[in-house]
């Protein structure tokens, strides 16, 4: 009985407790910013970064004091937690905004015909021209070959896990698909180097290691495969069981049911996962660096000879000793991110159209 009355009085107390007026917290924020700007920018003690940091600290302190006095310590801590959570999100937007702004500021300088129609062949450190044509060709071919290899394999593995798999083997495979998503790209590159470039190709190549765009595609396949399996698996699981049973009831064999009913139903979601994995593969640099070798010239043949890729071109130009190299690097970066962004946004839009979406 005593506990009940205590609870009752507590509840009544919290209902009667005073709250801060709604407009006050934003006002505190503005005031903190103002004080900080006057104290730091005004006296020249630091730049705008320090101003914002000090303003945030002042805002938190002011909230703690004001809210603590009016509403009590629990409400004050709640308000500070809210500020911290919103602050974390805003903090994450800063690098994204900065990367985009820097890309637009520095990357537009070399958007010209020469950049997109010429390679770096015979371009010395003193030449201002040169382009990324050979790199764009390389990226498209390598990612294309990787997609041709990884999509059927990935879909088949997902079909196995969802439609055929039972028992311990399936559990193990599902587990290692997840683990495989965490394999560093440089390790995938080293694997293809050790296996394809240093052991397999010398057999056909008079004993010399054969760096090629295809080797890079193999490494990208290793990186794409688990992503595709994982997303396709989730999508196949969302296909209603009744659809499969209806097909079986009509006497359709299982493989035809999978090909004609299950996969088409899951298609939009699967395409989304595939495009995201392609976008990620397009941005990979490390495997290309190790197994495609890179070249300043145009090479249309992915199966023989060194090949460039856009991401590797960015890396190369960023380290090149020429006053014109940074401009090329940034424009190539902008081109690369345009390709990746188009793929990513298209994938997201397709996901929204999916009929069996989550």
């Amino acid at each position: 009985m005593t506990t009940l009355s205590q609870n009752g009085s507590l509840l009544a107390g919290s209902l009667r407790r005073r709250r801060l007026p709604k407009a006050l917290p934003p006002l505190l924020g503005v005031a903190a910013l103002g004080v900080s700007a006057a104290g730091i920018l005004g006296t020249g003690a630091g730049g705008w970064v320090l101003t914002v940091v000090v303003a945030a600290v002042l805002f938190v302190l002011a909230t703690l004091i004001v809210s603590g006095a009016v509403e009590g310590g629990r409400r004050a801590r709640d308000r500070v937690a809210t500020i911290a959570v919103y602050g974390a999100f805003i903090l994450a937007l800063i690098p994204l905004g900065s990367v985009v702004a820097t890309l637009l500021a520095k990357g537009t300088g070399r958007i010209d015909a020469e950049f997109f129609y010429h390679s770096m062949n015979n371009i010395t450190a003193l030449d201002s021209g040169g382009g990324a044509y050979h790199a764009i060709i390389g990226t498209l071919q390598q990612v294309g070959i990787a997609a041709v290899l990884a999509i059927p394999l990935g879909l088949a593995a997902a079909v196995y896990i969802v439609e055929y798999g039972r028992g311990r083997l399936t559990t193990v495979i599902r587990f290692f698909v997840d683990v495989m998503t965490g394999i560093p790209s440089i390790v995938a590159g080293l694997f293809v180097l050790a296996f394809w470039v240093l052991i397999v190709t010398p057999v056909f190549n008079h004993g010399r290691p054969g760096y090629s765009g295809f080797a890079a595609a193999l490494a990208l396949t290793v990186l794409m495969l688990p992503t595709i399996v994982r997303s396709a698996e989730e999508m196949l699981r969302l296909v209603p069981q009744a659809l499969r049973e209806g097909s079986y009831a009509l006497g359709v064999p299982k493989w035809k049911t999978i090909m004609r009913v299950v996969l088409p139903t899951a298609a939009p979601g699967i395409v989304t996962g595939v495009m995201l994995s392609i976008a990620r593969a397009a941005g990979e640099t490390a495997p290309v660096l190790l197994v495609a070798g890179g070249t300043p010239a145009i090479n249309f043949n992915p199966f023989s000879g060194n090949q460039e890729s856009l991401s590797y071109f960015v890396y190369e130009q960023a380290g090149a000793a020429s006053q014109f190299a940074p401009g090329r690097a940034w424009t190539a970066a902008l081109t690369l991110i345009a390709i990746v962004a188009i793929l990513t946004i298209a994938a997201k839009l397709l996901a929204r159209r999916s009929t069996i979406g989550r």
Partner: protein
Amino acid sequence: MSESPMPTKVGPDPTVHSGPTLGGGAALPRAGRGLERLFRWFSTGAGVLVLVVIVAIAAFLITQAIPALRANQANFFTSTKWLPNDVAHPRFGIAALAYGTVLSAAIALVIAVPVALGIALFLSHYAPRRIATGLGFVIDLLAAVPSVIFGLWGRDYLSGPVTDLSGWLHRYLGFIPLFGSGGPYGNSILLGSIVLAIMVLPITTALCRDVFVQTPKANEEAALALGATRWEMIRTAVLPYGRPGIVAAVMLGLGRALGETIALAMTLGATFGVSIDLIQVGGNSIAANIANGFGEANATGRGALIASGLLLFAITLIVNVAARAIIFRRREFVGGQS
């Protein structure tokens, strides 16, 4: 990376329903049965291929590493030198690289994990429902930025502010050994770790968000009904429920950070040494050293780099297996509940 590695819908295994009695293989004409078998074998083979690839990675890396390790005249695990291209006396050790890898990854996590938890809570419990998905997409965009672009940005843009920050840290916190160096500043562990933190943010956030969203509504409402503020509800209902998931998310972020290559190759100073100082030009990592050193490596040098890659593979494999084991056990657990 928006594909959450952890499915939001978990239920009884649907494969149970598609047993051998369905799909009517027995009633098929002979040709159809052959196709059925072919299809089954192909998909099984693709599934097994995943296991084959993981084993093959280890096998081929070991094969290529052994000659170089044999030729090595220093202790591979304790030496801080990296001179495998010396034809007469190749000597190399992983100590400095492994130290730099672990240090930069640790600093990156110290920066990234609190922010990632904050963003995940924001997306799951603070942001208005209607725009939460869109805001989550913004964070996913960070994952879509290729690492070479983060490297370029870190090297050409962020190194300026970080140089200023390094000087400031040294002036006011110089008594801490971490900030003891008087310069030069720029391509330091601090710069590399900040770039790394930005890169592991999306995956850690996505996993934490998925865990927080799954908190049973009953637990949350019970906490609120007892008079808890929103923060108290999160502390008593959401965070304890999500703890294993948070641990797994942090470990997956760690796996990413350990294996990141190009961004670190472009932002670290690529020196070989063991120093606690974060702000001085320097620092290196296993992966960055492979990218930087591959161009001028001879046969033994290549073998040495592959040997270091083998160690990196082993470390990331252990971290990932541990993280996935936590998620996997939890998935079964949650699946049994719902």
